């Protein structure tokens, strides 16, 4: 993995996340005494390149959504650094250390799109006003220019400008997601976190929205963090992928490395569970019993050992360190072989 301590490097990543942690206290009793911690995100390290797409994947409860929200400080982080360098020539800033006012000034750069655009749009606000709101709050344009800007944004996401006067319930799911995208796009973001942004859409509409996201990336050089459980979409859209299990990254690499050459037993089981749109490939699954354990009492050692067919004694006692497998490809498993020999 690239270990750039970056200053004045055009290849410097847009985002470098180190040791990201988010714990939630578990409270009990009359005085809400803290009796434990849910380690929802427990030490994530990854980098995101400019204009690239990284996906965080894993089952529900693995911490991928919490990770996305903590990155943007929508949740207060427990520990870690998020080094953000909008300008490759300048030294990066640690988002977690910024005072509130400076963080606010940075907000236009960092946007998020949610799964259910219906729940994230105010039902009493016309979509035109919903898109105009961030523009006015951040004083990007004057009140007189706002209408033109909103019309331009609606056109850019494939909606007719005259829909600005309509309310969210008058739109279909795909159209509402386009409104959500227009809203995220309004402030000229450098990074958009797409939290299950296409999961609720029908397949033909999903393809339209994915194409739109890709076009916007090409046009504006936006980086995406894609949080998704639909792995076929992830494979299609991502440059790099990090597979999470109970708050930790168990394997990361380029999309090709993860999908064509998965090394961690969890990644392999997860990928084999994807149904193929090809009846001749039926039933070639790696069985994985049970469900993701509760993050309040995660299993000792490697968190995955309770569901892993290959688990040994060592896996039950010792958390495996990440093993480098090749350029940018790493897995946290006692049983994978370091790629040292292959690489040499």
């Amino acid at each position, binding site marked *: 993995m690239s270990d750039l301590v970056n200053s004045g490097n055009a290849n410097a990543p847009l985002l470098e996340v180190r040791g990201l942690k988010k714990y939630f206290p578990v409270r009990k009793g009359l005085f809400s005494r803290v009796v434990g911690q849910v380690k929802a995100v427990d030490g994530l390290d990854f980098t995101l390149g400019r204009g690239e797409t990284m996906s965080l994947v894993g*089952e*529900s409860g693995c911490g991928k959504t919490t990770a996305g929200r903590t990155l943007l400080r929508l949740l207060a982080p427990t520990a870690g650094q998020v080094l953000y360098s909008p300008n490759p020539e300048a030294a990066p800033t640690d988002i977690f250390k910024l005072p509130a006012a400076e963080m606010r000034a940075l907000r236009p750069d960092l946007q998020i799109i949610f799964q259910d655009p219906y729940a994230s749009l105010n039902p009493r606000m016309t979509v035109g006003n919903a898109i105009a709101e961030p523009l006015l709050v951040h004083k990007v344009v004057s009140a007189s220019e706002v209408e033109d800007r909103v019309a331009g944004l609606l056109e850019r996401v494939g909606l007719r400008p005259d829909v600005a006067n309509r309310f969210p319930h008058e739109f279909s799911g795909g159209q509402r997601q386009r409104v959500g995208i227009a809203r995220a796009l309004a402030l000229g973001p450098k990074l958009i976190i797409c939290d299950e942004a296409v999961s609720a859409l029908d397949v*033909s509409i999903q*393809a339209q929205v994915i194409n739109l996201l890709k076009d916007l990336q090409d046009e504006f050089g936006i980086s995406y963090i894609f949080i998704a459980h639909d792995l076929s979409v992830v494979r299609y859209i991502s440059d790099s992928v990090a597979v999470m299990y109970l708050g930790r990254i168990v394997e990361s690499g380029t999309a090709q490395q993860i999908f064509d050459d998965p090394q961690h037993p969890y990644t392999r089981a*997860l990928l084999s569970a994807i*149904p193929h749109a090809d009846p001749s490939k039926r039933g070639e699954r790696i069985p994985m019993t049970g469900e993701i354990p509760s993050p309040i009492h995660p299993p000792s050692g490697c968190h995955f050992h309770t569901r892993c067919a290959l688990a040994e004694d060592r896996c039950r006692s010792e958390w495996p360190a990440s093993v480098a497998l090749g350029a940018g490809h790493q897995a946290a498993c006692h049983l994978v072989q370091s790629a040292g020999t292959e690489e040499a």
Partner: protein
Amino acid sequence: MSEANKAQGEETRDQIEGAREPLLELRDLATWFRTDEGIAKAVDGVSYKIHPGETLGLVGESGSGKSVSALSIMRLVPSPPGFVERGGIFFKGESLLSIPDEDFRSIRGNEIAMIFQEPMTALNPVYTVGDQVMEAVILHRGLDRAAAREHAIQMLTKVGIPSPETRVDTYPHEMSGGMRQRVMIAIAMSCDPALLIADEPTTALDVTIQAQILDLILELQQQAGMSVLLITHDLAVVAETAQHVAVMYAGKVVEYASVEDLFAQPRHPYSIGLFRSLPDLAKQGKRLTAIPGMVPSATRFPSGCRFRPRCSIATDLCASSEPPLVSLEAGGVHTVACHHLEEARGL
């Protein structure tokens, strides 16, 4: 295809499939809804058959009418505003639509059972899981509570719920989504139904849990020899589980085929478009071929072929006349409703 050819094709198909009596047959079923904007023709002339032991995959996007056709079978369409305008539903040769409500209760949940997408809304939060699994056998099989409880524990074991003896006394909110769906399946299976209708049973679940649930349905199906009507928007799920597929669009079946034939070569422009939209079949980095536009509202279906406004090969003929479902070749199972099959080959 000439008229004579077509008639012959259907005859041969009937001869082949007629050898086996279908378990369920929908004939030209139309289920409509009265709405403020007029009549919504959610299901408008749908025919399909399910044979004993078979899984039929019903695919289509939201609003295609796939769920309403299933709710019509179960007589769960809210009325008003919904009503069956025409057509028939035949189960084991008997017309379900002419059975009085009281008698239908001995079929629903007993011979035909249904599971839904969101088990949390389908389960009653104030009753234990055990109570809900027991309800059907007490009602339909006349078991007493003690025997029903034993049966419930057996069913929970069968669907792979760990420590069923204690789980039987827990409430739905104490379980994960995957476990709740297993409970739904236990309820549905408790009376050994001949037909299981599964409406998006795995859509709300993780892919790992989805695989477990699909395997479970398949396993129970093989043990009990039941038929499954699997409703899903996910073509990959159909590829994994079904023998036959009906593709629905705007209240109609536009293509029907064996799963192998459909996935090898979809013939209706809509089916072709659906497959093109799938990211898992696309090359990475290559643009997805999306179907332009969206599904029309059920109160304002276009004239003629309903896919016409989104179809790149539509002609005046498509606007003026509605294409019937016809067999591709004499005796073949594969049927398609399109005026321009030859042109569609070039898509």
